[in-house]
């Protein structure tokens, strides 16, 4: 039963990684930007929720709800003021600018919140668990997984059932053509970044209630998000869930062998996937 338990804990952990990955995949899908500061923005979101909860004396979930519109606005402004200037044919500028943002966010958080590790509190719910057969599931990990599925359903509906989604997909296909149709791609990119930041805020909340975080946690989250995106297959929302689950299971199996192997086995599985199927598991072309 121990092994099955490990797998299930890994699947639930994969939900968190799918949340990290969804925001990254969305941005890459719409504007071909790999946001190297993605992980740091997740950590920034967690600190923002913590700050709101502490300042207003609110429970963390309410603070997270309050943070959502601000995160959207932040992402929107970031795209309009900085990132839109980086999106030319050149690869170098967007990568290095987001890398610079990563350093700024990490050190800004370090300056404001110190290097101490923090956690978002959920009271008794944090340790609550329920049994399914012989397996004990934590409420928080299970909720995270449900949230991941809801976010992915939401994004799918947004992209495939709405007018905005149609424009987002069209912009992804060809910036030139949507411009001819009278769409300003820079505005669309800003909206996409805003949506990505809403997903970032959701990931930030669940990251913060599942485990401790500190200002230096960002790059690790970026790598997990990226690995989940690539394993699942580029440009596929549901692929991020598959990728996240594979990564989560690989990590918990590795961790059950030895704690040092937890992260390492996730990375090794990722490297194996890019050697064997560099376009990811869910891509149509091999």
């Amino acid at each position, binding site marked *: 039963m121990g092994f099955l338990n490990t797998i299930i804990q890994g699947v639930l952990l994969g939900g968190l990684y799918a949340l990290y990955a969804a925001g990254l995949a969305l941005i890459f899908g719409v504007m*071909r*930007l*790999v946001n*190297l500061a993605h992980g740091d923005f997740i950590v920034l979101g967690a600190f923002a929720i913590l700050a709101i909860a502490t300042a207003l004396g609110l429970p963390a979930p309410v603070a997270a709800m309050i943070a959502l519109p601000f995160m959207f606005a932040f992402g929107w402004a970031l795209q309009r003021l*900085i990132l839109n*200037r*980086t999106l030319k044919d050149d*690869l*170098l*500028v*967007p*990568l*290095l*600018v987001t*890398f*610079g*943002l990563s*350093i*700024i966010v*990490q*050190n*800004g958080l*370090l*300056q404001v919140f110190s290097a101490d590790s923090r956690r978002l509190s959920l009271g008794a719910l944090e340790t609550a668990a329920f049994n399914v057969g012989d397996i004990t599931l934590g409420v928080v990990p299970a909720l995270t997984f449900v949230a991941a599925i809801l976010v992915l359903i939401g994004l799918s509906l947004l992209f495939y059932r709405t007018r905005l989604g149609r424009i987002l997909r069209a912009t992804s296909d060809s910036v030139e053509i949507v411009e001819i149709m009278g769409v300003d791609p820079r505005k669309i990119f800003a909206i996409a970044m805003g949506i990505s930041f809403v997903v970032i805020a959701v990931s930030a909340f669940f990251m913060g209630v599942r485990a401790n975080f500190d200002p230096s946690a960002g*790059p690790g989250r*970026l*790598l997990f998000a*990226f*690995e989940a995106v*690539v394993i699942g297959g580029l440009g596929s929302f549901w692929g991020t869930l598959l990728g996240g689950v594979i990564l989560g299971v690989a990590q918990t199996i590795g961790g059950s062998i030895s704690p*040092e192997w937890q*992260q*390492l086995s996730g*990375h*090794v599985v*990722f*490297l194996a996937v*890019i*050697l064997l199927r*560099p376009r990811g598991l869910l891509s149509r072309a091999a």
Partner: protein
Amino acid sequence: MSQRYVTLTATKTSRVALLVFLAGIIALAIAPHLVPRSLLQDFILVFLLIAMAQCWNLLAGYAGLISVGQQAFVGLGGYGLFAAIVSFGMDPLLAVLLSALCVAVISIPVGFVVFRMQGAYFAVVTWVVAEVFRLLLAQWKALGGGTGTSLPRSATSDMFGLNWAAEVFGVRSAAAREIVIYWAALAVMVVVIAVVYRLLRSRLGLALSAIRDSEMAAESVGVDIGRAKFAAYVFAAFGTALAGALYFLDSARISPDSAFSVLDWTAYVIFIVVIGGIGTIEGPVLGAIIFVVLQSTLSSFGPWYLIVLGVLGIAVMLLAPKGIWGTFSAATGIHLFPTRRRLGAAVPREPDPEA
């Protein structure tokens, strides 16, 4: 003799610059005589950062390969050095060279993995690989595991060149050790600059420049893109490991977090290249000097210092993407290390007086 065109890369300025450069090296070589010991450490850091920055610049500025995982090779270089000294009692300088050669060999299979991804994805995969090496070496118990280890003092007590340096400069062995490492760092910098310069003026360099300007056009005229990029990648791994190994010989202490630090070995190096001027040989030299001056004056401000570096880097990237040297060079037409080929006049080819 028939009339033919000649392609030139050298200019009058560059010939003068080469002489100034050689004179500068000689001046730097005797500098331990003249400058205080504390400054010597700054010089060592500048030399090593220049070597690393040249390597990153070769990748990003010429081969179109943006790596954020060069810390993998710094760390491997450092750990290779410690392993060779601690396990085999090898002479430190020999160990530096051997370690860098081993890293170059390791970079070949690593290259096969990371080259599966292109563009921005390549960048993140190099970072993952660096993390894998950090996690692996944190499990090497003989070298201190996660907390790291120090070199025993005896390891460098009969280092190659030590007695000689002690005699020539009339100093104790601790100071002599520093002078030997200073010379080695100077040599590493000169060798890396010379090889990169030579490489960029060779056929491979032409191929890399073609790739930088347009990958598709380069491929269409028969450039073997994959091979040229791979060669640049392996050389960059070697040069980075050489500088990394020497850095950890100097500091005599290593840990997985310091050896594989993305901030120290990639963020700083990128800052140096971007500020100085990407795609030039002069840029990383200028950038490294600026960086070390900034660091020694501002690093006491802690996180603020890094925020300023980040803002400065982004501002240069957006407003003056050619960096200081690139902007200066574009305005004045001065190239100290020209790699651009110009067509010479249709004169009978004379024997090159400099050949």
